[in-house]
């Protein structure tokens, strides 16, 4: 194990872990803001209970996103110092802007929201949740502007041995941003929707008290999820079409397309021999990949072998093929989870229209488990996006192998990798414990109950 591999492993683990919490924050913050606005407009106490209940789960999740996010911001300098030097002139800017525009907004207004129930007017209180939602989603936009530079560098000039920004506007209008951000945004909506749908279904099945809350939450989030899943799939399609032009190697790896084809077939299942770049066993749909790429049954889609030869001519000798199996399978898991979600949500909408969803026991039993689907799609989607870009850290400009910190020893990375992984594991346990506890507990119907936590408990004294 060398320092590079360990640093990559650490980045992968901490990033996937961080992104485990982010999409729910993105989608649920907006949902809470809408629910609270309805409460303010209608005065219906049911919506306040909904906001309080989902808000509590939101907070538990949010805390994890925040603390794991600190690691993300520091890690570029800690483990990837040569990367930071090479692209800092461009990449640092969106990160700083993210902190200034988004982190301050979401953290300050979340404090106001959480502690301000009795101190702010109803309207201002709802406004604070909108600010949290805007802050969280602006944060996603800026970090994706930064990430898009790694996927598709724009607005730079190579000078003084590094990439220097020469067009800030080009960073913002990077076509990659506007292919990627909506995809992430709507995956957040979908994640939040499934989280609420699954939990509500659980309570409806259990016949928990406060039925109105669960019915409203269920219907609301199913529609929310419909918007999310349809747009996430459409935007994913746009993204793939962009990838054909911008990162054909990633697409070729995601499709295990060894040789260029016109019209190109799409793999439904490939068991490949990565070393010799050939299929061992494959089921392929003729021309489908060309249709997906260009909206017509013909058109050349470049394969791995041709691209490798092409890149060798452009960038010099080297291996330009990303790990194909990981890219291929994570892509399929993401798309597969998305398709199952689409079916589930369409069924849910159908049952809502027919008003018979509480009677579809099998369906309601399935939904709590389906909460896992958006999480699978989110994680595998990111793994595919980042692994598929390899060996580059910044596409065409810097390789991952040249980006790692020379000042950090293998032992040091090993130490941090182990300790972060252990701590993250423990925190995941605590997080799931709390989420489960409060999700199952349901809403609080009355004002402070006699044994509420505000009463000092004598047991704490001797500790």
């Amino acid at each position, binding site marked *: 194990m060398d320092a590079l591999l360990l640093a990559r492993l650490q980045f992968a683990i901490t990033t996937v872990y961080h992104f485990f919490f982010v999409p729910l924050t993105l989608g649920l913050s907006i949902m809470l803001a809408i629910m609270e606005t309805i409460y303010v407009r209608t005065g219906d106490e049911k919506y306040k209970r909904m906001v309080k209940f989902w808000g509590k789960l939101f907070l538990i999740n949010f805390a994890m996103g925040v603390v794991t996010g600190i690691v993300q*911001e520091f890690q570029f300098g800690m483990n990837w110092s040569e990367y930071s030097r090479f692209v800092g002139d461009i990449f640092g800017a969106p990160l700083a802007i993210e902190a200034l525009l988004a982190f301050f907004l979401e953290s300050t207004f979340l404090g106001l929201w959480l502690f301000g129930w009795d101190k702010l007017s109803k309207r201002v209180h709802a406004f604070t949740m909108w600010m949290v939602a805007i802050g969280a989603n602006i944060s996603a936009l800026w970090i994706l502007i930064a990430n898009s530079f790694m996927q598709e560098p724009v607005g730079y000039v190579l000078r003084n041995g590094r990439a220097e920004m020469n067009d800030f506007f080009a960073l913002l209008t990077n076509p990659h941003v506007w292919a990627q951000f909506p995809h992430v945004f709507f995956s957040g909506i979908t994640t939040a929707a499934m989280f609420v749908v699954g939990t509500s279904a659980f309570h409806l099945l259990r016949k928990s008290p406060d039925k109105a809350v669960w019915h409203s939450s269920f219907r609301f989030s199913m529609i929310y999820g419909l918007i999310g899943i349809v747009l996430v799939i459409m935007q994913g399609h746009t993204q793939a079409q962009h990838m054909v032009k911008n990162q054909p190697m990633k697409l070729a790896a995601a499709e295990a397309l060894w040789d260029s084809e016109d019209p190109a077939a799409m793999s439904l299942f490939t068991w490949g021999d990565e070393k010799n770049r050939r299929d061992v066993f494959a089921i392929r749909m003729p021309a489908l990949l060309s249709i997906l790429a260009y909206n017509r049954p013909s058109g050349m889609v470049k394969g791995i072998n041709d691209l490798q030869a092409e890149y060798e001519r452009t960038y010099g000798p080297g291996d330009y093929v990303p790990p194909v199996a990981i890219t291929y399978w994570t892509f399929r898991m993401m798309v597969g989870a998305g398709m199952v979600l689409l079916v589930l949500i369409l069924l849910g909408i159908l049952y809502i229209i027919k008003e018979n969803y509480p009677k579809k026991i099998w369906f309601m039993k399935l939904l709590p488990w389906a909460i896992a689907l958006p999480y699978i799609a989110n994680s595998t989607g990111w793994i595919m996006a980042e692994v598929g870009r390899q060996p580059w850290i910044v596409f065409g400009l810097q390789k991952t192998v040249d980006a790692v910190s020379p000042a950090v020893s293998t032992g040091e990375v090993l130490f941090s990798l182990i300790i972060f992984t252990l701590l993250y594991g423990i925190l995941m346990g605590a997080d799931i414990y709390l989420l489960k506890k409060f999700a199952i507990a349901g809403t609080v119907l009355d004002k402070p109950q006699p044994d509420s936590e505000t009463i000092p408990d004598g047991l704490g004294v001797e500790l």
Partner: protein
Amino acid sequence: MDLNTLWFLLIAVLFIGFFFLEGFDYGVGILLPFLGKDDNQRRQIINSIGPVWDANEVWLLTAGGAMFAAFPNWYATMFSGFYLALVLMLLALIIRGVAFEFRSKDKHPTWRATWDWCIFVGSLVPALLWGVAMGNLVRGVPIDADMHYVGGFWNLLNPYALLGGLATLTLFTFHGATFLTLKLSGDLLAKSRAFAKRLWLPSVVAIFLFVISGYWATDMFTRLGVNPGVAPVFAGIALLAAGYFIYRDRSGWTFILSGLTIVLSTITLFMGLYPRVMVSSFNDAWSLTIYNASSSPYTLTVMSWIALIFVPIVLGYTIWSYWVFRKRIHSHTELEY
């Protein structure tokens, strides 16, 4: 003034804001086990910073982001060079942040005691490490001609830097105690006053030792000269005056003065650094400066405009949030954390 100097100043301002605000947050966390004798009291203490701790921490994230954007070489050299120290800091910040949110969400005493311990350790470690880091920045660390830190972890724990750590630890704890004298009431108010009184002298001693040893460990004295200027002199005066007011139970003044001590001391440290951002102990020519570590003029210009527009907005709603939560906390206050 050129843009490089402007960004040096802006980053100094971000660290000043961070140390001032998160300084009392750390202090409150460190005092938690000593002040809170039962669970309700501990909750009052935690809730005193409940609405603001997260936003206060964002000052650090913004400072880090600004270093990355304006001085990428500084960010790269320092963050990779101080690797293990930063790992420790991150661990502390992670357990602390989660603890605030999680501790009161379950009633089991072991659960709460564990998270309280996380708040304590998670506040103590960064309060100490920031002094160590600042001490090392001005003292100088082994940096080679290629801007790479080559010193390892133990090099950072030299006596001067450790004194710096002791100085920030005691000063932040004192600052936290004076903050609590403004936020708490009744029994807890009296106790936090007593703690502030007890903590004042140790901070004076630690800071005095840190300053004096700087004569041998750094070039601060020769750089700042016989008349070091307003900041260092008034930092000392503010700290001494804080002692005067705390013994007269003037909480407001004491807090302003403990805060002023932090602000002016941070200014002094940045004055000692300027125009360098990291001093090389091998060769002064290898030090990182605001010029050889900086981004391009174009990037600095873009970032200046963005800072100019958004910093006032951030300050505006930050002040508003402190205004909303200006009231003291009582034992019957409804507590969120």
